[in-house]
């Protein structure tokens, strides 16, 4: 599935997904986190999304499970018990590393100035060419290249 199609068919459902998450979790921040988790999951497996005829139904089903998992986890946290030994410590470490790396990059993107962030997202996520970004943002290509270079330099330090 192309990035453009993913955004047209799936990202446009973000508001509806959020309402479902909020209905289940009843917390704004948690609901938004759950929706973000849903989209990261969908994005990772976007090649398999081509065959899904009802994106909204599929998304709600996955989201409901994610929300229920969150509720279960939070209930376990409320009643702390002895933590079991992880079965696959290596894989869990990798998963934690992945999450930490993602959180760092996301924080770094959020800390970028608006124009740098916009250009970086259009280039990285949408895969647009400099011409297309220039057309969409109204900036000239030299400015775009400078902004992108600055954004990348900042992110490189974080990554």
């Amino acid at each position, binding site marked *: 599935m192309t990035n453009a199609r993913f955004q047209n068919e799936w990202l446009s459902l973000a508001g509806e997904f959020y*309402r479902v998450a909020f*209905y*289940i979790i009843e917390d704004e921040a948690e609901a938004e986190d759950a*929706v*973000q988790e849903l989209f*990261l999951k969908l994005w990772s497996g976007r090649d398999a999304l081509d065959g899904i005829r009802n994106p909204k139904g599929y998304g709600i089903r996955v989201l*409901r499970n994610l929300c229920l998992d969150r509720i279960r986890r939070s209930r376990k946290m409320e009643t702390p018990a002895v933590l079991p030994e992880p079965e696959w410590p290596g894989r869990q470490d990798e998963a934690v590393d992945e999450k930490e790396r993602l959180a760092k*990059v996301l924080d770094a993107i959020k800390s970028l100035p608006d124009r740098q962030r916009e250009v*970086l997202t259009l280039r990285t*996520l949408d895969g647009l060419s400099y011409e297309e970004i220039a057309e969409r943002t109204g900036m000239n290509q030299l400015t775009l290249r400078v902004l992108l270079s600055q954004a990348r330099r900042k992110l490189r330090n974080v990554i």
Partner: protein
Amino acid sequence: MKTLEEIENLSLEELEQKAAETAAPVPDGLERRLREALAARELAEAARPRPARWIPYASLAVAAAAAALVALPQRGPKDTFDDPLLAYAEVEKAFQTISDKMSVGMDIVREAEQTADMPYNTLNKIQK
């Protein structure tokens, strides 16, 4: 607060309908933040350390070299033979080689003898 069972018992259509009825306001910039999260995932994925790509190829090359060393026939003379005829032929060849070398050596010895005899013969001719 809703119970887990309450949510689990709802069909997807009912869940969607109830969620829509609440008309909870969607936070400003939700879609933008999601786009940024996806971009971050792409960048984090690109920055993830990967094992060097040459390692599998190098392993294959080493394995192929080892297999070739084992499988290819050894160069140089063999010292044992399964076939007696081949062994006989090899021995004959070895003797022939020794004989050839010895013949050359004998020719040199004969030549040297003739050279050594020359003064003696010359003296004999003078005395005669």
